[in-house]
C-alpha cells in the first residue's frame, strides 16, 4: 500500500522564492494497475518519483508498506522499481546480459547461477537472443523491454513506469503494454496515450500540480478530454 499524506513538492525559483510543483496531496494507492495522466509539467513525473524516494516531499510524507521514503529510502527503493521514459538512461552496462546480472547481484551470490538466472529473465521477455548485443545496437522497443526486464529482475513489489511507451512506435507500444499487463506486481504508470491509460483499474488526472480527478479510468479520460478542450 502506497500512502501520500499531505505530500507536496516545491522547488526554488529563479526570483529567490519558490515554485510549487505538486500541491499537498493525500492518497492511498492499493489497486493493481494505476494510470496517471495530465499535460507535460502537470506534476505526473514528480508524483511517481515521490513513490520510490527519487524525489522527497518538501512537506508531508509518502510511505510504501509503512516505510517512510525520507527515512527508509534504501528499503523503499528495493520494493519499488522505476522504469524511465528513456531506456538508455536506465541501462548501466554495455550488454543486456551484464545489466540483468547486475540486478540479480544482490540475490544470487554465485556467478554461474546468476548467469543462468539472468538468461532465464531475458528469455521470459523474449529477448534472450539479444543478451550479448550492445545496448546501442538494440531497437527502441527491445531496449525498453530490456529496461523493464532489468528493473523487474530485482523483484520489486511495485513497478513504476514513467511514460514507458512515449518513445516507441505502435507495434512496440503494444508489446510493452502487454508485458506490463502481464506483470504480477502493482504497476503505476504515466502516459499520454488515453487508451493505454484506460487499460488500468484506477486513473489519476493531474493539472497544474493538483490531482483534479481520481477514479474510474473511462470517466477520468472523459474528464481529461473535457479539461483539455476548455
Amino acid at each position: 500500500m502506497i500512502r501520500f499524506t499531505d505530500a507536496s513538492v516545491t522547488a526554488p525559483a529563479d526570483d529567490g522564492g519558490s515554485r510549487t510543483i505538486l500541491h499537498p496531496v493525500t492518497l492511498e494507492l492499493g489497486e493493481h494497475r494505476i494510470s496517471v495522466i495530465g499535460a507535460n509539467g502537470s506534476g505526473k513525473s514528480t508524483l511517481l518519483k515521490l513513490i520510490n524516494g527519487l524525489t522527497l516531499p518538501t512537506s508531508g510524507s509518502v510511505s510504501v508498506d509503512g516505510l517512510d521514503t525520507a527515512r527508509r529510502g534504501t528499503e523503499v527503493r528495493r520494493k519499488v522499481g522505476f522504469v524511465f521514459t528513456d531506456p538508455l538512461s536506465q541501462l548501466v552496462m554495455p550488454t543486456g546480459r551484464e545489466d540483468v546480472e547486475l540486478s540479480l547481484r544482490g540475490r544470487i551470490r554465485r556467478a554461474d547461477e546468476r548467469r543462468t538466472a539472468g538468461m532465464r529473465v531475458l528469455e521470459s521477455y523474449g529477448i534472450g537472443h539479444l543478451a550479448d548485443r550492445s545496448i546501442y545496437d538494440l531497437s527502441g522497443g527491445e531496449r525498453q523491454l530490456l529496461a523493464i526486464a532489468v528493473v523487474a529482475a530485482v523483484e520489486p513489489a511495485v513497478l513504476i513506469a514513467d511514460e514507458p511507451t512515449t518513445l516507441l512506435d505502435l507495434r512496440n507500444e503494444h508489446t510493452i503494454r502487454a508485458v506490463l499487463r502481464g506483470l504480477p506486481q502493482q504497476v503505476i504508470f504515466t502516459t499520454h496515450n488515453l487508451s493505454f491509460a484506460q487499460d488500468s483499474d484506477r486513473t489519476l488526472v493531474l493539472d497544474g500540480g493538483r490531482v483534479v480527478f481520481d477514479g474510474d479510468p473511462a470517466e477520468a479520460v472523459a474528464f481529461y478530454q473535457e479539461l483539455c478542450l476548455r
Partner: protein
Amino acid sequence: MRGHGQLLGLYVPGRSLLHRTPLALKALLCVGASTPVVLIRQPLTTAAGLVLFLLLMTVGARLPLRKVLGALVPALPVLALLALYSWFTRGPEAAFVVPGGIAVCILAARLLTVTTPGQELLDGLVRLVRPLRRLGADPERFALALSIMVRSIPYLVGSLSDLRDAAKARGLQRSPRAVVVPVVVNAVAYAQATGQALAARGLGEHSDADDEAGEGVDGEDSPDADGRGV
C-alpha cells in the same frame, strides 16, 4: 561502450595447465615466488626467478617465447637505465639484480593477466575485499563500483578524443583546458544519471536498514544552477 572487451583484453584464451589453475592459487604462486626475488636481491635468486617464470609462461601457459618477452618491451628503457645506473654506482651485480627483480615481477603479473579473463581478475579482487566486511567494507558495492568504472572507461576515452577533435576544429587544440573541462563536466552529469539509474533499481545503496538515506538523489546539482552567494 564498445572496446570494453579490449580493455580487459590482455587475456589470451587457452586450455593450458595455468589457464585451468584456480586464480587464488596462481596469485599465491606469483606473489609467493616474486617477493623473495625482490627482497633478497642476490644474483642467484634473481636468475632462478627469471628462469622459473619464463618456464611457467612458455611451458605452463603454452605461450610462445616471443610473446612472453614482448611483455618486457615497454619496460626496456627503464630497465636499461636502471642497469646502467646500478653498474656505475654499485657494480655489475646490482646491474643485474635491480632490473632483473623488476622483470621477474612484470612476468609474474603478466602470467596472471594472460591466463585469467579480466572479469575473473576483478571478481578475485572483490573476494579479497570480502574478509574486510567486519571493518565496514562493503564488497557488493565495491564490486558494483568496479563494474561501473570498467564500463565507463571506453565512454570517457571516446569523449576525450571526440572533444579533442572538437577543440581542434575550433583551433583550440593547444588548450588542454578546452578539452578536459567538457569531459569532466560530462563525466559528472553521466555519473549522476547513472546514480539515478541505480537508485531506480534499488542498487548501490548501503544495506543498513536503520540508516536514513534517500535525499540527495534528486535535487542534485544541475549545470544551469548557479550557487547562491553568501
